[in-house]
């Protein structure tokens, strides 16, 4: 147990340093339009540098880029990284299926469809976007659970139901985009996921959803591990299983809904990060949640940084980079694990 605590502390400290490093890099990395020096001066001057009169044009541009573009974007990447990975972890443990993620079970697609509906019905209303995003996420989760409760809650049924619901909402999304191309400013970016069309207002309005989801996670945390023991054992230990599971799915929908309202249909994070942390640190929820908190944002920040810097001034959707980097990395971890188990 002492060895495990030491390993956990080491992984946490490494992750925190990595996260902080990537966060500041994403704020301060120069490009051909803005130098590192001006960015650093703007950082040291604080947000007040935006209002300064006696600065050069280059310095003002650096201040605008840092405080009005990069900081909201990096903050959104942190929130979405932790939101999607925690959402995936909640679904995987409460439904006892490591192949579940908000993108697989249809939660992301449901949220995405409702984001487009809000753009059609309530254009420019950022609060409506956040609320409808959560509504779509929650509705998709409930449809999947309803189908599974009727057809049998096996791992296969859940995934099949999730895939079916995901396809349904994706089809509705594509129909909306086809009939109303103006409903989304960047179709590829929205479908693959990214932060290029992020606004500060949408970030602010998503905060209550993130807060509500995280508070629920804190409250539910002590009982979540009991799901791993099976429903009968968990009930025997005093866990109100049906109620806890419903609240876990609600929390996952809050976190995913908030994330989709910021970054579009960003998949992969919710599947891979929880599985990676569980491979490294076992199956304790508290431990895994803390690691998702650190490595989910770090991974998404890195992908977003690569997406906007690799081919500057052209920007790729962060979701594309996520898949290109993440898939080979995950396959490598799987093969390494299989080799270690075979020995």
């Amino acid at each position, binding site marked *: *147990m002492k060895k*495990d605590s030491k390993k956990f502390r080491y992984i946490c400290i490494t992750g925190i340093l990595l996260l902080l490093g990537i966060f500041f890099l994403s704020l301060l990395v120069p490009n051909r339009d803005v130098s590192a020096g001006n960015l650093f001066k703007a950082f040291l001057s604080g947000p007040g540098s935006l209002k300064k009169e006696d600065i050069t044009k280059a310095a003002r541009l650096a201040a605008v880029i840092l405080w009005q573009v990069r900081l909201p974007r990096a903050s959104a990447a942190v929130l979405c990284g932790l939101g999607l990975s925690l959402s995936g972890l909640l679904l995987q443990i409460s439904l006892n299926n490591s192949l579940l993620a908000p993108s697989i079970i249809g939660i992301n697609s449901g949220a995405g469809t409702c984001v487009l509906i809000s753009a059609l019905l309530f254009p420019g209303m950022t609060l409506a976007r956040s609320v409808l995003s959560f509504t779509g996420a929650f509705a998709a989760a409930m449809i999947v659970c309803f189908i599974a409760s009727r057809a049998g809650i096996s791992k296969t049924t859940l995934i099949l139901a999730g895939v079916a619901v995901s396809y349904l909402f994706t089809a509705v999304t594509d129909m909306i985009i086809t009939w109303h191309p103006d409903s989304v400013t960047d179709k590829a970016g929205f479908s693959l996921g990214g932060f290029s069309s992020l606004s500060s207002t949408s970030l602010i309005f998503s905060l209550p959803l993130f807060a509500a989801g995280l508070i629920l996670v804190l*409250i539910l945390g002590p009982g979540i591990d*009991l799901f791993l023991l099976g429903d*009968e*054992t968990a009930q*025997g*230990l005093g866990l109100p299983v049906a109620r806890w599971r419903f609240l876990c799915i609600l929390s996952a929908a809050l976190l995913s809904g908030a994330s989709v309202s910021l970054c579009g249909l960003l998949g992969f994070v919710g599947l891979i990060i929880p599985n990676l942390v569980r491979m490294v640190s*076992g199956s*304790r929820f508290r431990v895994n949640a803390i690691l998702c908190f650190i490595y989910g944002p770090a991974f998404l920040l890195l992908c977003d940084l690569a997406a906007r810097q690799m081919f500057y001034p052209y920007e790729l959707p962060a979701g594309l980079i996520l898949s290109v980097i993440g898939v080979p990395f995950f396959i490598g971890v799987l093969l390494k694990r299989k080799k270690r188990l075979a020995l």
Partner: protein
Amino acid sequence: MLVLEQVKAGYGGRQVLQIDELRFPENRISILIGRNGSGKSTLLKAMAGILPYKGEILIGEENKRFLSVSEMSHKKRARKIGLLPQTQHPVDMDVETLIMHGRFSRLSWPGRPGKKDMEAVDKACRTCGIGELSGRIVSGLSGGERQLCYLAMVIAQDPEIFLLDEPMSAMDIGHQIRIMEIMRTLKKEGKTIILTSHDLPQSFTLADRIALLSEGRLLCEGTPEELSERPGLVKKAMGAAVRRKEGEGLLYPYVLTES
């Protein structure tokens, strides 16, 4: 004491259990025996409050107020009744973490165990004799070792009543003997133990009282001595009778007979 009155339970709208009246005395080992599908596990789950039922299942003591199992909160019920289901999952967690989960009903948010909880886990490990499994991962244990760990988890829960669903099935004789010794230890500590089994010699040896189930109904109940004098009834329920065999050093002083 656990009292059942007019209890009916089933699955998917189909009734599989009907018990008019049954009492399990406190501080005794009671065993439910019956063939597969006779309703033993259904009865156990209803008593644990995890399967909906009609009728009354009450916990209490003589001359004191009885509490209904279905009306208790989940945590209160878990503090009174500990359930060991038939199937245990081979989870990827260490033995100590598994056993500590038994304290869930006694922990307040945020669920950090205190000194009392650590002592309960240590005591459970000593009772089950699994000190050598410390630090091992549950999924890497044998079936018998895993069963002992889950039993230790229920012991750490510190309930008044233990409900154990076939705790000795699919275990080697060494582990079976160990579990029987654990149950006798728990009884000495004042606990009430109710388990299911379809091993007649073992049940008749271990039990203070036996309840015979057949097709979801109570056929009869009594002490092993009383039931061994009713071989016809036992044979009807189980397909074989038992009789007591006298002799030195017998592990099971009851043997199976055809009649």
